[in-house]
């Protein structure tokens, strides 16, 4: 396989994309897990499809419009949640479908041959271009800089929003910022696993990492490594069995989570009976 990688540019790009995307994904995945923003992230991911459609319609690179639309959607959900006192759950549900609907409408209105929607929905890491890589790298730097700059503040905000607010931590700003980070991360992942499959890759690595350590920085680092591992393993599966890459990556990630949980469950039970005996 190594020979093939050296031979083909698209495989090198795929590997670069796997590494770079896993960085943002692993770090923000931990925030998504701890702040319980999984549904929120799903909603943002699906509004990104509206952005993709808009891009095709306006003949702009779709990934940029996806970024714009999902960031706006994230800010809108955050603002509406504060103002309307509505459950953000309901809002997310509506944004979720509305985003997809707009995407479908924009694409239908676009003249000419319809674009490859499947690769947007389910990802195609083998189609990552140099310019995609540059965008992913840029967004990675943005995410890592923000997280580093506000690391203590984010931790205080996620752990106990009320106390943080009383202590003068700018919780509202942090909330908006976190939603934007989620939106950015989702866009980073679109090329790799697509809009529909992104949730598994945002949640499985941190959920596994948390079973081994309670140190937030270590959970982040481990999530990044796991994400990279899953992408590589998924790529390999997709290459050998000729399956779609996005689907393979997701199956590897969720399979690994199931396996780790089962093994730990088994060990705990054995440990329990050993202690009783």
């Amino acid at each position, binding site marked *: 396989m190594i020979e093939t990688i050296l031979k083909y540019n698209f495989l090198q790009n795929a590997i670069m994309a796997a590494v770079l995307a896993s960085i943002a994904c692993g770090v923000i995945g931990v925030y998504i897990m701890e702040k319980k923003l999984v549904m929120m992230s799903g909603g943002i991911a699906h509004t990104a499809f509206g952005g993709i459609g808009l891009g095709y319609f306006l003949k702009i690179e779709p990934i940029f419009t996806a970024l714009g639309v999902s960031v706006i959607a994230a800010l809108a959900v955050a603002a509406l949640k504060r103002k309307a006192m509505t459950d953000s759950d309901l809002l997310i549900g509506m944004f979720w479908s509305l985003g997809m609907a707009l995407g479908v409408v924009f694409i239908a209105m676009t003249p000419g041959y319809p674009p490859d929607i499947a690769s947007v929905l389910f990802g195609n890491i083998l189609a990552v271009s140099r310019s995609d890589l540059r965008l992913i790298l840029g967004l990675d730097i943005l995410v890592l800089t923000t997280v580093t700059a506000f690391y203590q503040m984010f*931790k*205080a905000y996620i*752990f*106990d929003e009320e106390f943080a607010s*009383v*202590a*003068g*931590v700018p919780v509202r700003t942090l909330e908006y910022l976190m939603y934007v980070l989620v939106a950015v991360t989702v866009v980073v992942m679109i090329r790799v696993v697509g809009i529909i499959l992104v949730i598994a890759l945002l949640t499985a690595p941190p959920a596994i990492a948390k079973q081994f*350590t309670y140190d937030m920085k270590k959970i982040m680092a481990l999530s990044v490594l796991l994400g990279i591992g899953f992408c590589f393993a998924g790529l390999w599966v997709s290459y050998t069995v000729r399956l779609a890459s996005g689907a393979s990556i997701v199956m590897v990630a969720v399979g690994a989570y199931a396996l780790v949980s089962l093994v730990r469950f088994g060990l705990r039970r054995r440990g329990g009976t050993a202690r009783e005996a």
Partner: protein
Amino acid sequence: MELALDIANLNVFYGDDCALKDINLQVEEREFLAIIGPNGGGKTTLLKSILGLVTPDSGEIRIFGRSGEAARRSIGYVPQFSRFDRRFPISVEEVVLIGRLAGRSPWFSRFSRQDRQLVDSLLERLEIAELKNRQIGQLSGGQLQRVLIARALAVEPQILILDEPTASVDSASKTRIYDLLKELNQEMTILIVTHDLSAVSSNIDKIACLNQQLFYHGRTELEAGLVEKVYGCPVDLIAHGVPHRVLRGHEEGSL
């Protein structure tokens, strides 16, 4: 003398529902005040109004003469430990360090050696120094409660506000917490909110009963009739500690 807490004509509505009606409350410096009342009586709303988490419809809240965000700088807030996600990846030291973020610029906040020394001395004082590196899920309820008190003290507050500090801790921990609060009361004003009437001990200077309106007492002696009025039914009060009874003796033949 300047009042530690001065609440004037406070009204809070949730939609059409009146949660707090014309609350007036003055707390002097180094007083130990307990606000008691039934669940749903507005205790949490009053607490959140003082903490700036709820915006009142009318009225004014001043803390050491200041209002708004500046006022909150002098508050050390101890929430109920039971509402925490115990699996959160954070250690005891990290929790207490959060208190040092108060008033910081949000950019690139790092903790100084003084911050860490202060945290160490607080952990020492609360007898939880050996738990410093534990994740919070590995603590008992009473221990986590003391961690949260340490975090509030890390703010270096002038007034300590505790929400149900003795809910779901065993009676030994309860006694320790009250001993600790009594000690802290030498340095700062303390306000606790609770529906646990047994918490009303002899340490407390004043009691206010809250059920939409505030019934205020200048001394730690509740009148049975008033408690009945607030709670809507007769309530058993336990007089512990000793110097004085919390409740007057019930009359013969009364319920």
